[in-house]
């Protein structure tokens, strides 16, 4: 039985496919179209899923969509009824896409995929909840989903038990922790629905001086529920987010070109404090209601890795699993798996243990690409030679583009489409920024560590963190050894890796440890700022040639940047938010 899940038209369009209850492929549309957070109908991602399954669209048993469009449209109308006549600009911007595509989902799906059956519409937060619980290792768990907004819900609480999910409480639009975070993101001069993680990275530089101001615009009840005072916001009827009262309270908004001052850092820090307070409040109430030890989370706010790292300390929950594609992309997987396990009542046979669900290119395909484009390369005879040489190059402070196996599902590069470099070199953060990433200086780089060594280097509260969803303190005595991945507050957004999860990636770290005694590397996404993570061999080669990446290791091939023409393009000129 084949079930396809689709999410699109808001941000992070994606598709995922199940074969007899097992996810065999999942990918975000942005990786194919090269448009970051692409919202369009995910035709490329669907075609990839169908190709991986070896079927045509008409052979699908079910297609599940990640929200109920008419419920969402109802919410949109309510916003305009409430705000009329002030909301015309947003009405003018939004309405054409609703008429042309968003209210015609079944027709679009039938036309573009050839699928003849009925489309199943799963509520947005239910799809999030399903993506968090059904692939988790738990038979029973409490579930929390928090994001910007779905149809009406912005936060839901519930329980997963066996095949069933029961959502019992919600907080409704316009009261939204995700949209509060986005409002501050906009206020700080970053792009909404894209740069929220930058605000999180900025927070440790500041002091939480403005927490009391935040308390004026958000009410938190004793049971952990919350409501925003909408007189401070305008996102419910305008294309912008902070309102005049918000600006009066926090001062002049930062423009993207403005310098980052302590004032803005303090606002980011205060927001992080409030965000954590709300998340822990919701979770403590959820535990009180469910009395369960296990917790599953999804929704964009579940990508707040700083808060995630503290959950087991600040709440009574003992075990936590978060969907690696916690943002809207993950709802395609959630809608598909909910259809199989819950609607159709089929046994839960899938436990998600890795995120390598995207496209893969064979050795022959990669070599054909290299030859067809007259690219100069050398070939490793064995995997060991490849891993040893890569480790040696990293130890010599080269920046390596690492392209191996199936592309990652979710927003993080986890060792398939990664840039690897030496975490021990104190200048490596600057080197990476200068050569490749062109990032804001305040943003940290993330470490990857072998799972068996993780506890020696980080104050871990868990056995493993394979999806880079948690931030833990780097052990004090190790901070000087890996300065490039130690953030200003002494923390690191780490990934652990085991041999079973990714043998080549693991092998490189082990080989690096043999040379340097350090089982930690910098792992950052294989892209430049403003572009999606690379997908194909061409994307990878293009990225290397437009940046200062020194070597590209693709499967068993080594491509040295200096051996090939350097005038391909200038990544720095194109780096955007």
């Amino acid at each position, binding site marked *: 039985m084949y079930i396809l899940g689709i999410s699109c038209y808001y941000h992070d369009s994606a598709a995922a496919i199940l074969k007899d209850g097992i996810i065999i492929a999942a990918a975000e549309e942005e990786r194919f179209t090269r448009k970051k957070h692409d919202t369009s109908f995910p035709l490329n991602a669907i075609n990839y899923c169908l190709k991986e399954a070896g079927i045509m669209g008409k052979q699908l048993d079910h297609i599940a969509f990640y929200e109920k469009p008419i419920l969402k449209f109802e919410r949109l109308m309510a916003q*305009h009824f409430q705000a009329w006549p002030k909301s015309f600009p947003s009405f003018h911007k939004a309405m054409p896409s609703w008429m042309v595509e968003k209210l015609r989902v079944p027709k679009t799906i039938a036309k573009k995929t050839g699928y003849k059956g009925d489309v199943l519409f799963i509520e947005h937060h239910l799809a999030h909840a399903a993506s968090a619980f059904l692939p988790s290792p738990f038979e029973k768990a409490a579930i929390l989903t928090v994001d910007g907004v779905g149809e009406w819900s912005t936060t839901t609480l*519930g329980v997963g038990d066996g095949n069933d999910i*029961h959502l019992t409480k919600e907080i*409704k639009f316009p009261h939204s922790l995700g949209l509060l975070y986005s409002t501050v993101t906009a206020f700080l001069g970053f792009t909404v629905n894209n740069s929220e993680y930058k605000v999180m990275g900025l927070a440790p530089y500041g002091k939480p001086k403005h927490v009391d101001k935040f308390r004026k615009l958000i*009410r938190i009840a004793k*049971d952990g*529920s919350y409501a*925003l*005072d909408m007189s401070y916001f305008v996102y419910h009827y305008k294309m912008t987010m902070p309102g005049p009262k918000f600006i009066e309270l926090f001062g002049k908004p930062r423009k993207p070109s403005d310098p980052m001052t302590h004032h803005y850092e303090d606002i980011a820090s205060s927001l992080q404090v409030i965000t954590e307070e709300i998340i822990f409040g919701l979770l403590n109430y959820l535990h009180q209601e469910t009395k369960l030890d296990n917790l599953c989370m999804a929704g964009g706010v579940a990508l707040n890795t700083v808060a995630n790292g503290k959950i087991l300390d600040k709440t009574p929950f003992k075990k936590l699993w978060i969907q690696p594609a916690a943002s809207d992309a993950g709802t395609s997987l959630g809608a598909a798996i909910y259809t199989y396990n819950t609607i159709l009542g089929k046994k839960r046979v899938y436990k998600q243990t890795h995120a390598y669900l995207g496209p893969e290119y064979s050795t022959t395909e990669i070599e054909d690409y290299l030859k067809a484009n007259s690219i100069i390369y050398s070939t490793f005879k064995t995997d060991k030679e490849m891993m040893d040489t890569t480790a040696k190059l990293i130890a010599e402070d080269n920046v390596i583009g690492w392209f191996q196996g199936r592309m990652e599902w979710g927003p993080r590069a986890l060792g398939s489409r990664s840039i690897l470099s030496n975490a021990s070199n104190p200048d490596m953060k600057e080197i990476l920024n200068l050569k490749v990433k062109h990032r804001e200086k305040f943003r940290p780089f993330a470490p990857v560590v072998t799972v068996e060594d993780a506890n020696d280097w980080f104050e871990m509260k868990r056995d493993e963190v394979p999806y880079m969803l948690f931030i833990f303190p780097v052990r004090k005595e190790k901070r000087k050894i890996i300065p490039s991945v130690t953030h200003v507050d002494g923390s690191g957004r780490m990934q652990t890796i085991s041999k079973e999860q990714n043998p080549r990636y693991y092998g490189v770290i082990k080989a690096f440890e043999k040379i340097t005694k350090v089982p930690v590397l910098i792992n950052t996404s294989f892209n430049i700022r403003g572009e999606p993570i690379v997908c194909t061999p061409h994307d990878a080669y293009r990225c290397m040639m437009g940046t200062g990446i020194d070597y590209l290791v693709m499967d068993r091939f080594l491509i040295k940047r200096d051996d090939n023409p350097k005038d391909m393009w200038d990544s720095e000129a194109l780096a955007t938010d």
Partner: protein
Amino acid sequence: MGSKGGFLQRFFGPIYREVLTPFGQTILFVMEPIGRTIGNIVNWILLLATYVIGIGIVALPSKLLGKQYLDLGDKEKETYYTAIDIRTKKLDEYKNQF
């Protein structure tokens, strides 16, 4: 298009390449943004009419009667949760978009 271009090319001979093609391209170059602008203006007028009349017909009486479509968080409450009961339903119910 190819065969039409072929016919025009044969009929007009070198004039097609030297005069008509650049002329046609210039017309297209000028007309395309004009067409797009007219489309945008018509679109704007239609949407404005829909907004003023379609939304206004509900919004205006609602405002007069004090009806709220959104909870704007202006009142303190003991809880901001809304109770829901979302459970597994029959397959057919998921075919609804609402």
